[in-house]
């Protein structure tokens, strides 16, 4: 297996609107390797989230090719693409997107259940993951009973549930205060240190500064890339 997990070659994404097409991402070429820690930053509306969605197979490019593990994503049907998202990619969103009717543990169990893990196996893994994000004592609490930072940590635990090779985070600290953001940032560092490739989209210079590779976007293109 190659070292590259996801490889975008000249990808663009345009949204057809009544007033004309909006080109969110323009001719971007980028690959993310195993264990990498990258951050994408740039002004609002420059196409960061759109690029991240394409990398995570949540959205498809209008042109260019996007390969995941060497296979062209555009040739995959919904079933195969869903499988990829379920098992290979973890996604963390600014708004958490936890299911409000499920407890923290159940939210973490959900992707494992879909992946076919046995009940006791996924129970154990959920508790393990909640311990990992420091929330084992809140396992039976609903999202509405948790703070923003806690919800984001549950969302990270859920994203890691099926041991993905790539974790994508879109403004994971966007809704959190400074201290809580720091907790989440430390947690993400740890996830990466444990071997998961990490791509974070953020406006927060501190969070971006933790990455070894920082990409800066402007008008749908990667304007600058700094690797440390």
């Amino acid at each position: 297996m190659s070292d590259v997990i996801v490889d975008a070659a000249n990808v663009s994404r345009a949204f057809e609107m009544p007033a004309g097409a909006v080109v969110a991402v323009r001719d971007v070429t980028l690959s993310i390797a195993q264990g990498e820690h990258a951050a994408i930053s740039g002004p609002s509306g420059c196409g960061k989230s759109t690029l991240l969605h394409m990398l995570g197979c949540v959205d498809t490019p209008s042109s260019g090719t996007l390969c995941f593990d060497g296979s062209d994503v555009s040739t995959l049907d919904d079933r195969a693409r869903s499988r990829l998202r379920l098992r290979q990619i973890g996604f963390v969103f600014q708004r958490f997107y936890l299911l409000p009717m499920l407890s923290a543990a159940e939210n973490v169990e959900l992707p494992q259940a879909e992946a076919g893990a046995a009940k006791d196996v996924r129970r154990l893994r959920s508790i393990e993951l909640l311990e990992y994000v420091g929330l084992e004592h809140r396992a039976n609490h609903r999202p509405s009973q948790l703070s923003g930072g806690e919800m984001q940590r549950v969302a990270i635990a859920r994203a890691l549930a099926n041991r993905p090779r790539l974790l994508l985070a879109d403004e994971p600290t966007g809704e959190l205060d400074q201290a809580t953001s720091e907790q989440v940032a430390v947690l993400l560092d740890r996830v990466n240190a444990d071997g998961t490739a990490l791509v974070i989209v953020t406006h927060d210079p501190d969070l971006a500064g933790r990455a070894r590779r920082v990409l800066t976007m402007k008008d749908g293109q990667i304007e600058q890339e700094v690797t440390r």
Partner: protein
Amino acid sequence: MSLTTVSARVPARVPEGGHPGCCYNPRVAPMHTHRRRGRVAGSVVALSCVVILAGSVVPAQEAQPPSILIARQLAALEGIAVGDEVELTSGEPGSATRRFRVIGTYEPTPNPLQLGVASRGIRMHLTDLLALTRDAATPAGTEHVEGITIALQDPDSTRAFVNDVNARVVGAFALFPGQAAGAGDTFVVLERFHMAIATVTIIAATVFLLALTVMLVDERRATVGVLRLIGFPAHRILVQVLIEGVVLAGAGALFGLALAVASEGLINWFFQWRYDTALIFVHVTPTVALACVAIAVHLGAVATATASWALLRSGGLRLAKR
């Protein structure tokens, strides 16, 4: 309508004193046999007719006049009791009156067209009827009857009996109850009326169910979006929503059925009391119940599939973002 009834059209002459039908099948017995043996559930070969009561109840006499049965409602209306003797006339001007003895009452076959009208029916032997209605100019034995209704003791033998009559009696046509001219007309109209009501109800229910499922599915937009983002394939979500829709529709149908069954007795009791009839107004048969559930489940599936289809066409992000 009773399945035990066979309508026989007999255009041929009926010999006086004869009981058409009784010779065709030993199970069919004339009415006087019924009385003599004192059986309750005997077969009856007789004509149902409405005859005008010529006079009031007359005191019983020594010589036994021919026997008749009168409708329960008529008995109540005229204050006639079993054992009384009555005088009947055909109602034709100048027709003679004849004396009859009431040996029992009967419950008239319920007729939806005569709802609220008290039955004044009388059942008598065919020979008595002929004697009563014959005008002076018609020689005995030359009367015509168009048809007689025969009740069989064993309803399952209807087909065999009809075939037997048709094979043996030239010029007589035995028909099944539904085939007798005019016999089913009332019910055909009623069935059409019911079908129209059912169609309108089902269309209205479909619209309602569709609106309900659209709401149900729409409420789940965010959840479906999150599931899609996590990596649940569209078909999995569709199946899940479909199962829920079908269960919901099935549960609704069962609830409706339970309600119908529970209120069936009450509705029948009320209207039977209100119109003094034995007519059954509501009857939930297993076929009706099955049809209800089958229609509901299919409608539920179609409604949820329609509602989910639009939803699943949007990407997970768009749904989750709401």
